[in-house]
């Protein structure tokens, strides 16, 4: 049996494959009239992929010839034009941004999804807790108690409001600035602290850097340091949900920088082609470490890319908790009901440094950072709205801030004292069962430790 070379076919499009398979029918597609019958029979015997409902019409056009103003190209009917014009590279106006509250927290429209009172208050409390957690953990890193930390300053509304609009069955594929989503879902402060200190109570067993949280109980997939790889994971998981017919969707978060990767492009394309229930949430906070968005892409942000992939998209004010909540609510409904992907671009500002390894005053003016932190603070805006609704008071504020601070400090103090994971955990979970080579390596390591016990750190248990 001859070995044919399929790679060449790889590059021939739909029409090419049609032509090569049709030639088996011994009729040329364009020649005889009776080939139309064979073509429709052939098409009907296959699934929708080969079926073109305009196949007959296509041949009518070709046979009529002459004065056609449109043609059924692969992909659909296209009208012709005699204008030699290029589509603009830069739009006259940027796509408008959906907003519900103004800068001082007053409602400017009624076009939003209503939030239950309890949910609204919980949202605010969690936003404050996130802020407190960020501040204190950041300080702890500066004091040398943990090795690394990454804050969500300026993105509290994105974190909490988007989480509040989802159900616990929805799967979250985070990047790294979404600890608030996990906080909303019930991850305790102690668990956060355990992961940052990498102690034996960490459900990641001390294997990842701080802020790389993960909890299958909360449907929050472990953070990986690789950029934008989680986007295609989310598409795959959404595919799994679609196969199971479940009433849930997946959501994945990424920043403006992550949208430059190949993984972003391919994942969005796949999601559109495969029609899976996934929400793509882009946190456009203006900076990818020191790279501003003007050096990252030249498109009008990320929202315009949705159209390029055939995905419904929206731009929202990321500092407006109610806007984010409404957008994610609607996106979830669309995703699940129609089993289609949705793209949300939340415009915000990264008010903190990229991480504890970064000093952003080196590449952007301090005044700019200060302005965003004060004038557009999402927590302040939401608080003003809550106050206006009679759901929050100054006293509640002071009490909350005090207790939050105490809780976080306590969690850190406890986590600091807990033992680290044992040496055994270096080797477990690489595979489901320990293979022989790893068993040998563990034995060899333990022997070395025994021989040189004075060189071995005392706070790591065997």
């Amino acid at each position: 049996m001859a070995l044919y070379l399929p790679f060449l076919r790889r590059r021939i499009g739909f029409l090419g494959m049609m032509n090569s398979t049709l030639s088996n029918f011994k009729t040329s597609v364009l020649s005889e009239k009776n080939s139309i019958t064979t073509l429709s029979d052939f098409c009907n015997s296959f699934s929708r992929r080969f079926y073109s409902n305009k196949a007959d019409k296509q041949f009518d056009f070709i046979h009529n010839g002459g004065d056609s103003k449109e043609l059924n190209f692969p992909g659909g009917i296209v009208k012709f034009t005699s204008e030699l014009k290029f589509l603009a590279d830069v739009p006259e106006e940027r796509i408008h941004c959906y907003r519900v509250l103004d800068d001082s927290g007053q409602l400017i429209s009624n076009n939003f999804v209503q939030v239950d009172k309890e949910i609204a208050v919980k949202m605010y409390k969690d936003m404050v807790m996130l802020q407190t957690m960020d501040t204190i953990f950041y300080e702890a890193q500066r004091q040398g108690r943990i090795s690394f930390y990454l804050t969500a300053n300026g993105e509290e509304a994105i974190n909490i409001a988007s989480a509040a609009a989802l159900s616990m069955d929805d799967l979250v594929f985070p990047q790294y600035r979404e600890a608030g989503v996990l906080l909303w879902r019930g991850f305790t402060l102690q668990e956060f602290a355990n992961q940052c200190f990498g102690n034996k109570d960490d459900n990641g067993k001390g294997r990842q850097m701080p802020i790389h949280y993960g909890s299958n109980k909360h449907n929050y997939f472990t953070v990986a340091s690789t950029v934008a790889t989680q986007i295609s994971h989310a598409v795959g998981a959404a595919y799994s949900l679609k196969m199971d017919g479940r009433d849930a969707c997946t959501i994945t978060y990424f920043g403006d920088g992550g949208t430059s990767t190949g993984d972003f492009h391919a994942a969005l394309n796949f999601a559109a082609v495969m029609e899976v229930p996934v929400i793509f949430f882009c946190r456009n906070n203006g900076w990818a470490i020191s790279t501003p968005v003007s050096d990252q892409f030249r498109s009008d942000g990320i929202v315009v890319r949705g159209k390029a992939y055939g995905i419904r998209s929206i731009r929202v004010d990321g500092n407006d908790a109610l806007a984010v909540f409404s957008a994610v609510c609607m996106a979830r409904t669309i995703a699940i009901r129609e089993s289609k992907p949705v793209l949300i671009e939340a415009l915000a500002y990264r008010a903190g440094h990229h991480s504890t390894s970064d000093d952003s005053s080196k590449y952007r003016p301090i005044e700019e950072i200060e302005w965003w932190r004060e004038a557009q603070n999402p927590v302040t805006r939401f608080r003003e709205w809550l106050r206006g609704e009679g759901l929050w008071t100054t006293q509640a504020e002071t009490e909350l801030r005090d207790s939050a601070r105490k809780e976080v400090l306590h969690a850190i103090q406890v986590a600091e004292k807990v033992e680290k994971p044992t040496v055994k955990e270096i080797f477990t979970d690489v595979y489901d069962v320990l293979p022989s080579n790893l068993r040998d390596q563990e034995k060899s390591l333990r022997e070395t430790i025994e021989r040189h016990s004075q060189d071995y750190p005392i706070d790591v248990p065997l």
Partner: protein
Amino acid sequence: IRSEARTISGAINGSRKTGKVITKAVAAQAESPASAASKPGHELLLFEALREGLEEEMDRDPRVCVFGEDVGHYGGSYKVTKGLAEKYGDLRVLDTPIAENSFTGMAVGAAMTGLRPIVEGMNMGFLLLAFNQISDNCGMLHYTSGGQFTIPTVIRGPGGVGRQLGAEHSQRLESYFQSIPGIQMVACSTPYNAKGLMKAAIRSENPVVLFEHVLLYNLKERIPDEEYVLSLEEAEMVRPGEHVTILTYSRMRYHVMQAAKTLVNKGYDPEVIDIRSLKPFDLYTIGNSIKKTHRVLIVEECMRTGGIGASLTAAINENFHDYLDAQIVCLSSQDVPTPYAGTLEEWTVVQPPQIVAAVEQLCK
């Protein structure tokens, strides 16, 4: 031989043909219909064996699904998935756009959510585009999540040097992947082990990379009718012998067996082992063989630098140094991209005369 002993004491992996040692690795001559009908089992080609294994697993477990380019209606570039899309539908046999990084990532996400995806690289070389997903996510997420998320994927595809496919389509990815912690690698070489390894890989909870070879898809063999699953960590004893241990895998097995015919005529008695499991190595079977023969020859298709042979040489030296009477000889391809011209290509792959010469040298 360890694998035989297991069968006698009660097979872990279902029934297996006991005591069957394949002395002629290349498929048998055409049999007459009468004799064919009376023998047990059924005859098929290697790609059909892979498909049979795949189909049985898809029947058995509804979570098994296939992602790849042209695997659905086209049936796969080597017809391994032919007919499966019609039988199981578009959702379970999924045609993907051309983005290996993305559909491998999709498979990771789907696996973490409960599916058991099989990713087909149209040619193993294309999976280099998915390296980030395979090494940093597939191999790592079970570990970094503290065991919370498992990734039971199978990544498979044709690799190795074919007939004039050009450098980019002649990659031997086992050398690039062998370092990745968290994955297992196996290479099939006969219809029997292809089906068994495919089934074992699908049932494994770890990510497994199954290496097939472009030139072996049309090998014919008679395989059992009963269900069987092979072990992912076991090597296969192809021909027991006394003088020298020849370790090989995939297509080189056939070059070795051809050389073995010449060697037997010249009076040598080589022991040929198809290592099958590329990560981890089956050092038990290999070690027992070395303790018997004291001479090792490794024949591989990988390039000299950083190939499977290089790692195997290191592993054997470390573990069995005292049993060796001579230095380990490793025959591999040169460190060059595979040329297109047929004559040039032939000389980048280890040929039987070189194997014969190496054994003669080793046994002096």
